[in-house]
């Protein structure tokens, strides 16, 4: 957001260039994501009411009414305020989990590339296992039996999609070893950790970032699905999914409780897909 603002004042020609380079839909996606990040960061400042503040005299007030832009829910809590807080919670979970899964998967991929043999087979068997159970089913079992907590939820979501990073980083690391620059550093006496972190990682980073744009929306959908089923984020904390889940009971009388968060989920995943596709075309060396 700030980078764009300075661009406008500093160099108008840059704006024109950006407009040509960035398709309209992608620009829209970027703007929406900017808005979401802004909302998540400044949630406490822009929230008109407290999330748990009830007003029993104003229950199920419709949207666009004075004081409650998006209406209120069954306890008279302001839907907009809850939506803002939910955006923060859902984005924080998805962001943490994406980083975790990228870290975990890339590490395993590099380990497989470095040691080959038994380690590689073990990691492949783990990936098979992950593929054999739909992730939602796996998480349902784990969450319901350990009880749902924020830490467990982020940790669990952090297992989502690790096999994708593992596969990519293993493949890229093996081909990097064959390209000569990695073996050249090994010949110079570098330790494996240095080879992987300083030489191979920067070369495969763009591909990994592109896969993060694939994982991120999927994690948002997974978390909201779990929360919708009542097994993800627990009240009084709210997330986009559990707002839809609770709003479902008031579907006929107060559909706005559910439509707001549903709209935000859709727009966010849509924006990330659009931006991710565009980034893939720009960054990914494997499809060039």
């Amino acid at each position, binding site marked *: 957001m700030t980078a764009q603002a300075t661009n406008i004042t500093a160099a108008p020609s840059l704006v024109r260039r950006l407009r040509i380079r960035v398709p309209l839909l992608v620009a829209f996606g970027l703007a929406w994501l900017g808005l979401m990040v802004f909302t998540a960061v400044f949630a406490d400042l822009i929230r008109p009411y407290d999330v748990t503040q009830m007003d029993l005299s104003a229950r199920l007030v419709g949207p666009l009414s004075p004081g409650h832009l998006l209406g209120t829910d069954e306890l008279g809590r302001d839907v907009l305020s809850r939506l803002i807080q939910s955006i923060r919670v859902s984005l924080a979970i998805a962001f943490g989990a994406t980083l975790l899964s990228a870290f975990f998967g890339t590490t395993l991929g590099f380990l497989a590339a470095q040691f080959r043999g038994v380690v590689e087979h073990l990691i492949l068997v783990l990936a098979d*296992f992950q593929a*054999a159970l739909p992730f*939602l*089913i796996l998480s*349902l*079992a784990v969450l319901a039996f350990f009880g749902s907590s924020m830490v467990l939820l982020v940790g669990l979501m952090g297992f989502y999609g690790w096999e994708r990073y593992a596969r990519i980083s293993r493949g890229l690391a093996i081909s990097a070893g064959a390209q000569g620059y990695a073996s050249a550093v090994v010949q110079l006496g570098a330790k494996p950790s240095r080879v992987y972190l300083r030489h191979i990682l920067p070369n495969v980073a763009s591909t990994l970032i592109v896969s993060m744009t694939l994982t991120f929306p999927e994690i948002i959908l997974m978390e909201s699905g779990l929360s919708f089923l009542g097994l993800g984020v627990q009240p009084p904390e709210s997330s986009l999914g559990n707002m*839809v889940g609770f709003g479902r009971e008031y579907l006929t009388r107060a559909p706005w409780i*559910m439509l707001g968060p549903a709209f935000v989920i*859709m727009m966010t995943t849509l924006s990330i897909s659009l931006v991710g596709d565009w980034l893939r075309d720009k960054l990914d060396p494997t499809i060039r």
Partner: protein
Amino acid sequence: MLNYFVTRLFRAVLTILLVMTFAFVVLRLSGDPASILLGPDAPTDSIAAFRARWGLDDPLWKQYLAYLKSIAQLDFGVSMRDRSPAIDLVLERVPATLALTVPTLLIQLGVGIPAGVYAALHRESVADRGVIMLSIFGFTIPSFVMGLVLVLVFAVTLGWLPSGGQDSWQHAILPIATMSVGGIGILARFSRSAMIEVMGQPYIRTAMAKGLSWRDVVWKHALPNASVPIVTIVGFMVGSLIAGAVVVESIFSWPGIGRLLIVSVSNRDLAVVQCLLLVIASAMVIANLCVDFAYGLLDPRLRAKAAAH
């Protein structure tokens, strides 16, 4: 060829064994089923009797061996709620879930692949752009939002279709529609890109240059080659179908295995959850095996490679 299938089969068995172990470890280590089922205020002697009855006092490895042995005899234990065999509870729910997932898969294949292929053959046309946009929307809408919106429109506002239950074929329409949308989007997008890639290959140019009709080029040269990546994605979709069934059955109160899973998970009915995990994992593994075998049939290169060994 035989070698290829044997390796696949071995890995499939290994995967199922892993899932069994996972289910056992997670479910047993996570809490004490005796105090959950009998309540925190239950007298100690009835808790002790319960633990002895279900073998909960043995060391874990002993419980595990007993577990493996009973599964080998197709005995998945007894539901802790109503004492009926877990496998029966699960199997009696399977037809209801199949009644949703099979039509869904057929619709996804029947709509998604033709749409994607048509879009690929008419690139940059209005139809192509339409297919791309619709498919992106299709897989960014979460199934629970789709389901609730459909209920809001067709059941609440228009009153055309029932919103939940399983009394007539009309009850299945909204759940099947909800589940189909995402898969159609994925398949359309995937078959479009597979087809575009194939159409750019030199052998297509050759086929056209030698004067084959457009239809022959598409049906005999392009489609068979594009089918390999499409089959791969269909294998993956079986998993999302089952996961989708969990959400959709819970929205539309459809008495299938998805709802059974959620109910037994919240009741901590260990035997039923373990049985469900195994049934679902087996279904997935079998689906993936079918995909692997389909490769063998679809891809002559694989046959040739296997014959050379």
